[in-house]
């Protein structure tokens, strides 16, 4: 069906097109720009356009696509680089050059590629939507092909499968392909949610040891500019012990995305020794790309993440940054002249955000397996003021807070995770797990937190009386705390130290605490700290 553009205000366009539904996808103007219906008033529909629409004229044609904004899900997503509408960026470059042109809609998956197909089910089986009927090998994972509808299997494909060939035929000549599409704003179904129980090892000592994360959990990482959000997110993307990583660069820097692509193209995943890109999907909607596509980018990303979760895999979703998403939401809301809430954000910011974050979790899948979708989300609070609406809205639903501290960053303490204000609600569960595997974890964690807290108190004293005025025992504690901070909590993402396995982490902290205890015992025996330290410095390492 066709309609005509009746008004244009920035990326918000009105058309006289009846019978549209909220969320429907449309193509606007002679350039066929992708848009989404966001409001309906009798016969006028308001469209949010996802592409640069400069030059769009009144009276140009608007056509409907069938259904809402969707992503295509199938083998070949891994290793892909997409924009916020799941358009494959390498293909866009091939088609339209180094600068992004509007009105391009190439299919996100490679139809020419052949996949060795093996069937999971027999003809005659009753197949339910969401169940696996076949599998292909995609890089290091078994990619399950999931049914997009119910039916009785009649015929199965055998041998090499291409995406436009039917992989199975259901009774009534319904065809199942190796791919299907799914609306981005609709969470993919699962059988039931499970409580997260397994630790997600990030390889960051500070996180794994003090504020552990669980598979299926949600952590937020707020921090002012220059506090290392992006480096932390990217480091976790490299080393986290999950099967698939979805990284969404939402409204961030283009050069950073270029760096990420370069690096991920070269690096190998430490456990499997396979190229890192083989387990990674990147959604890159940089800050100068259209705002509405930025808003949809996290949904595009999370839908792909859910798809891999539904195969029974552990998926980690990283977004950098959620604040840019919220700002996109605010810009769209302002263009629609909605009543603003706090700081101009729409009042539905909180509910929209929790709806999104609740797509994380450990689940029993429709295919019968267990999968998890974890989220680590960066937040960029204006002026590093954590009282702002986006941070606060996230805190209500996230299970862990990794707060990045401007002061620490200025001292080049990276990752700049503030150890007094950060927390993890998953700590107890993860701790039980770690203690079982590596011993003593919980005891050492308590010791370590205690030392760091006492250092804070002592430092206030030292600022008044000077280090000279402190007792030897207190000076020892300050020294140990400094070692914990500089040697243990600091971790350079650009060296070999970037990843620390749990076993080395525990050995590292055990050694630091043991040295402290040894020196403390010597002090109790009447030794002087300066002598002990001199001895330690002279001893060959």
């Amino acid at each position, binding site marked *: 069906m066709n309609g005509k553009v*009746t*008004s*244009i*205000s*920035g990326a918000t366009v009105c058309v006289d097109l009846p019978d549209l539904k909220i969320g429907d996808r449309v193509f606007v103007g002679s350039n066929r720009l992708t848009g989404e219906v966001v409001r309906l008033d009798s016969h006028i529909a308001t469209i949010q356009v996802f592409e*640069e629409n*400069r*030059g*769009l*004229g*009144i*009276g140009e044609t608007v056509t409907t696509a069938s259904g809402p904004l969707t992503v295509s899900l199938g083998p070949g997503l891994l290793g892909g680089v997409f924009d916020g509408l799941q358009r494959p*960026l*390498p293909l*866009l*470059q091939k088609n339209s*050059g*180094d*600068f*992004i042109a509007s009105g391009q809609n190439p299919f996100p998956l490679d139809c020419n590629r052949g996949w060795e197909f093996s069937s999971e089910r027999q003809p005659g089986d009753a197949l339910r939507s969401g169940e696996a009927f076949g599998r292909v090998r995609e890089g290091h994972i078994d990619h399950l092909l999931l049914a997009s509808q119910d039916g009785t299997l009649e015929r199965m494909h055998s041998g090499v499968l291409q995406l436009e060939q039917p992989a199975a035929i259901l009774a009534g000549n319904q065809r199942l392909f190796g791919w299907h599409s799914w609306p981005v704003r609709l969470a993919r179904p699962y059988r039931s949610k499970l409580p997260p129980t397994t630790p997600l090892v990030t390889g960051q000592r500070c996180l794994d040891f003090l504020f552990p994360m669980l598979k299926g959990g949600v952590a937020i990482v707020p921090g*002012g*500019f*220059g506090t290392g959000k992006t480096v932390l997110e990217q480091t976790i993307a490299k080393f986290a012990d999950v099967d698939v990583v979805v990284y969404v660069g939402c*409204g961030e*820097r*283009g*050069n*950073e*995305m*270029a*760096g990420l*692509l*370069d690096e991920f193209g070269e690096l190998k995943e430490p456990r499997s020794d396979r190229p890192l890109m083989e387990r990674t999907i990147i959604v*890159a909607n*940089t*800050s*100068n*790309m259209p*705002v509405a596509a930025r808003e949809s980018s996290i949904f595009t990303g999370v839908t792909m993440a859910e798809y891999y979760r539904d195969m029974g895999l552990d998926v980690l979703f990283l977004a950098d940054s959620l604040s840019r998403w919220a*700002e996109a939401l605010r*810009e769209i809301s*302002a263009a629609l002249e909605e009543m*603003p809430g706090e*700081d*101009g954000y729409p009042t539905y910011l909180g509910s929209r955000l929790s709806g999104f974050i609740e797509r994380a979790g450990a689940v029993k899948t429709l295919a019968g397996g267990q999968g998890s979708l974890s989220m680590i989300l960066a937040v960029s609070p*204006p*002026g*590093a003021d954590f009282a702002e609406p986006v941070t606060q809205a996230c805190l209500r639903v996230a299970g862990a807070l990794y707060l990045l501290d401007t002061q620490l960053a*200025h*001292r*080049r303490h990276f990752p700049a995770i503030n150890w007094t204000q950060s927390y993890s609600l998953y700590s107890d569960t993860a701790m039980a797990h770690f203690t079982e595997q590596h011993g003593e974890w919980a005891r050492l964690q308590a010791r370590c937190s205690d030392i760091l807290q006492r250092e804070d108190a002592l430092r206030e004293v*030292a*600022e*008044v*009386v*000077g*280090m*000279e*005025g402190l007792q030897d025992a207190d000076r020892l504690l300050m020294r140990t705390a400094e070692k914990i901070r500089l040697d243990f909590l600091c971790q350079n993402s*650009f060296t070999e130290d970037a990843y620390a396995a749990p076993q080395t982490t525990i050995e590292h902290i055990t050694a630091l605490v043991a040295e402290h205890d040894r020196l403390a015992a010597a002090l109790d025996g009447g030794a002087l700290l300066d002598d002990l330290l001199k001895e330690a410095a002279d001893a060959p390492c």
Partner: protein
Amino acid sequence: MRLAEHQYRSITAIRGPLLFLERVFAARLGELVKIAAPDGRMLTGEVLKISGDQVLVQVFGGTQGLDTRQTTVSFNDAVMRAPLGAGMLGRVFDGSFRPRDDLPMFIPEFRMPVSGAPINPVARAHPIEFIETGFSTIDGLNTLVKGQKLPIFSCAGLPAREMTDQLLRQARLPDSGPFVLVLVAIGLTHFEYQFYRQTLEHMQSRFVAFINLADDPVVERLLAPRLALTVAEDLAFRQEMDVLVIITDMTNYCDALREISTAREELPGRRGYPGHMYSDLASLYERAGRIHGRKGSVTLLPTVTMPEDDITHPIPDLTGYITEGQIVLSRNLHQKGIYPPVDVLPSLSRLMQNGIGKGQTRKDHRDLANQLYRTYAKGCDLRRLEAVVGRDGMLADDRRLLDFANRFEADFVHQGRERRSIEATLDTAQALLAAFREVTR
């Protein structure tokens, strides 16, 4: 599609820089319009919003003398494009691309839309090549690389202008390839303009300047950086030159954005700046970069004057979130007579890691920078302690660290008007660290 130019005399309202027209046939978003004032003056404008046959036009230039009866507005179906060509080198233009240097307009070879198109993230090449600015605090500790955007956060009264001027004269590529400077001055006072004119005279033809003076139309403040970046992209990606774009001062740009936004009756955000300021600034800053397979690069050095010296003010805050680091100037250092007064602790270059070391600057660069930074940070921390307990109440090592902080500021940060090569910068660093060997390990 209209095929001929359409003229209208149907202005219903004029508010600040905005015109409201009615009964316009098939207008386009971003369409360029020509406005003929009753006194014969010609202005240009751009379509911002269309509702049916009603059109909102933003005028580039003052709206004084326009009326609703006789003023004619003509629509010609084209979006705003910048004229480009070899003739633009060595020229000074105003915020609407009119010559400001009393020479005739050059003959454009072709035209490109001023808003530009985003670089495809997969086409971007990661910035890795060192640019020598001649300032130790930048080259040594916050290294600038080709394709980076690195703002200077200044405060009112600090010598940002002198630094900009030195950057214009001094910035060099190690391989001394062609390097073109694009100067964008937004809301510049006549006094400052005199100052920059002298600099530009030294530059011969290796520059293009866009000067919007403080009493020029406000709308042109929004246009000037876009024109300049369109020029820069053309020089970099078509003519394969390395381009350094210096914008001074982004604070005036943002204030202009706020002014126009208020005239459009948009919802104000923090401190009255529009909610879309992040995206708007990104549409400028993100035009910096390099592209795989093309030789040129666009490097961006904007100056931001922090209102009330406040780094959390929306302008420096949003800038810092988009750019790859920041160079922060300090009033405190300036009062000590240190030039350039760069406070290295809050300063940062995110892309430095790639641009230094063997093959770029020197093998020991990274170690030297880390040691300097760490030791100076310790020294600064101790200054607070010194203020409470006095120097005598401190450990001997701590007193040495205090001395280090002072010497670092005097020898390394302070360099006066002298240009230091990267070798000289690193040698200074090495000598300083050697003199304090016992506390710098």
